């Protein structure tokens, strides 16, 4: 089965509001993660590593940082003559000047892109789901089962982003898809990764539009469980859904665990990102670093424990940073102390200042702010 018979579609804005602090100036897709990545890198790399050569990235608002990050798609080998990466900003026609509000409207806006693709299948996914799965296997399972639509799900603690949970029969077919009951601890919840025929997607979008539906999962999938064969595909590997600032913080720190790192940065499926050409990180005499993930270009003179340091972070002499996520180009001044914080890009913590959050309530400091 040719995997390059699939066109990929990524929603870069899905669930922006779940992470409102970090998405105030950017899309969910361009939220920095894991020391040198943006969330969209995982979905894009997953697709590219599976042999998909045409990917549409649907954006809605605040997509300047996303455009800057993606460029021509070169870093993902998606800068191509034939196919490659397509950024799909909101399409406004004469009678509607507002950006879309839901997935159906988003897909409607990109109908031309979908219609003009030559591939027989479509894979769609979001950026707030963090995993590194083999989409080839996912696609293969879809073909094997003879399903019309296959949706990836994960069994675990239900995330807080009003997910749809699945009830499956023995064959893996989804028999009901109720909205998650937030109180329910564990469930088989949707990861919003779909594969289906392109022609079917086109038909479903048109139908949904004529009926005034708004939710792809609830209305389109929910209403067609009997008419169509809709199957679930369990992803048992490392999967995390970012549904709040707290979960962003926790999931980031989970990368300090070797097994999680191995699962997410699978050697066979590398995660590509925009290259910054930093030099190697420098650890000075007297520095003290433990249990941390450190990106290139960092200069460390002080103490760093249980942290994720993005590229070009400076931790000055006698400064202490613990249990924190420090993004690109941030500067921790001499003798300063930061614990349980999330520093967005380019934050400066002045010498001697102390800033502490709690493990279950990290302090967020916005882009380019000087504390």
């Amino acid at each position, binding site marked *: 089965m040719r995997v390059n018979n699939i066109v990929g579609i990524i929603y870069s804005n899905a669930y922006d509001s779940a992470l409102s602090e970090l998405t105030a100036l950017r899309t969910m897709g361009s939220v920095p993660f894991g*020391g040198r990545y943006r969330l969209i890198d995982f979905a894009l790399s997953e697709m590219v590593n599976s042999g998909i050569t045409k990917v549409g990235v649907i954006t809605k608002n605040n997509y300047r940082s996303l455009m800057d990050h993606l460029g021509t798609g070169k870093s993902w080998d998606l800068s191509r003559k034939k196919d490659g990466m397509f950024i799909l900003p909101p399409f406004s026609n004469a009678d509607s000047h507002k950006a879309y509000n839901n997935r159906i409207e988003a897909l409607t806006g990109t109908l031309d892109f979908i219609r003009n693709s030559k591939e027989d299948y479509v894979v769609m996914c979001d950026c707030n789901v963090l995993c590194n799965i083999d989409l080839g296997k996912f696609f293969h399972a879809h073909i094997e089962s003879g399903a019309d639509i296959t949706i990836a799900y994960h069994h675990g603690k239900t995330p807080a982003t009003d997910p749809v949970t699945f009830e499956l029969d023995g064959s893996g077919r989804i028999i009901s898809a109720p909205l998650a009951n937030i109180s329910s601890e564990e469930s088989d919840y949707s990861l919003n990764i779909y594969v289906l025929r392109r022609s079917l997607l086109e038909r479903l979008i048109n139908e949904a539009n004529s009926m005034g539906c708004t939710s792809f999962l609830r209305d389109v999938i929910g209403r067609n469980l009997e008419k169509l064969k809709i199957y679930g595909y369990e992803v048992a590997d490392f999967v995390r859904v970012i549904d709040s600032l707290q979960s962003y913080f926790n999931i980031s720190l989970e990368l300090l665990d*070797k097994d999680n790192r191995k699962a997410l940065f699978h050697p066979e499926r590398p995660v590509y990102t925009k290259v910054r050409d930093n030099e*190697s990180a*420098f650890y000075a005499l007297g520095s003290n670093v*433990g249990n941390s993930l450190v990106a*290139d270009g960092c200069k460390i003179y002080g103490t760093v424990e249980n942290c994720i340091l993005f590229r*070009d972070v400076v931790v000055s002499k006698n400064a202490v940073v613990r249990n924190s996520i420090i993004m690109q180009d941030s500067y921790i001044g001499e003798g300063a102390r930061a614990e349980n914080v999330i520093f967005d890009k380019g934050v400066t913590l002045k010498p001697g200042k102390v800033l502490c959050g709690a493990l279950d309530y990290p302090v967020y400091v916005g882009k380019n702010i000087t504390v």
Partner: protein
Amino acid sequence: MAKKTECVAMLLAGGQGSRLGILTKNIAKPAVPYGGKYRIIDFPLSNCVNSGIYTVGVLTQYQPLVLNDYIGNGQPWDLDRTNGGVHILSPYQQIKGSEWYKGTANAIYQNINFIDRYDPEYVLVLSGDHIYKMDYSKMITFHKEKQADCTIAMLEVPWEEASRFGLMILNEDGSISEFEEKPKNPRSNKASMGVYVFTWKKLRQYLIDDENKEGSSNDFGKDVIPAMHGDGQRMFAYQFDGYWKDVGTIGSLWDANLDLLNPKIGLDLSDDSWRIYSRNPSLPPHYISPEATIQNSMITEGCEIEGTVDFSVMFANVTVEEGALVQYSIVMPGAVIKKGAVVQYSIVAENTVIDENAVVGQCPEDTKPGEWGVAVVGENVHIGKGVKIKANTMTDKDVEPSAVE
């Protein structure tokens, strides 16, 4: 015809670098890893791009596979271009037969057609074995101002080291009056850096003449430059201030890497305005475990450090397991230092495994006077459990414990 270009750079990357021993067994010297993220050739290539020179011919001959693959279409250096860009120039067959590049001048001679396509005013000749950051555009401006036929970049070296270099004696106006090649009693400390700007018309003629001259070794330093000088062509020295290092020997390669850990050495790789570009391996950030201790070292993406690293440079994807000690060493991409192993004053090449409790290299104070030197372990080698590798040695085959007992 390609678009007219003011200056074309020709990068001599065909040398074997035999003094680097097993490190250049399978790769050309310019492809030798340096400084955690780079290969030596990244420096002249990045210098070209940062100087606004976008047409670069790379002359390869010895073991070009890794180098050709590394340069690829030149994308990491922004040299994948419609006009110009990077071109790999290997010796090729001609109607009168095929010839290897006989010398540095002959390598350029064989590619006169390549240069002519761009119809340049100037040709910049570089070598692929030096570590330095230099703005060639300033040197070209100098060359124009002096209306020179040849300008040679020059660096003042300490007098006590001067006898290791090709030296120049200058007139008051900066023109070159005499050359001295590695003299015993140097009369100058102005050393040639192996960076030349030529007016192409002039150089073109000299290359043809040199080719026709019998007994010529077809070398820039030995033949072409002396011939131009002998004919009274306008030759000037352009002074360069800054870090420059020839990494031609194991000792100097080791030194040049450790120089990066010395804040007093003027080679700043974090300078945004003069980035050194390299091909990126797409690896996650490196991980430092709670047990690890790192002092005055550079660590690169993909590393997993659980042991102790002092005064060392760790390239991408290196693993240092718990209880292992790495001191004053250069560990190249993909190498694994297992539990309890000790690596000191060494260079460990790509993908080599130092097994548990092995000891590689020795401290200078643990060796007899005059016997110390950096220990080198070649690429893809396995050093068995508990094996001891002495200082000043080169190991390019697996060493298993029984072999030494």
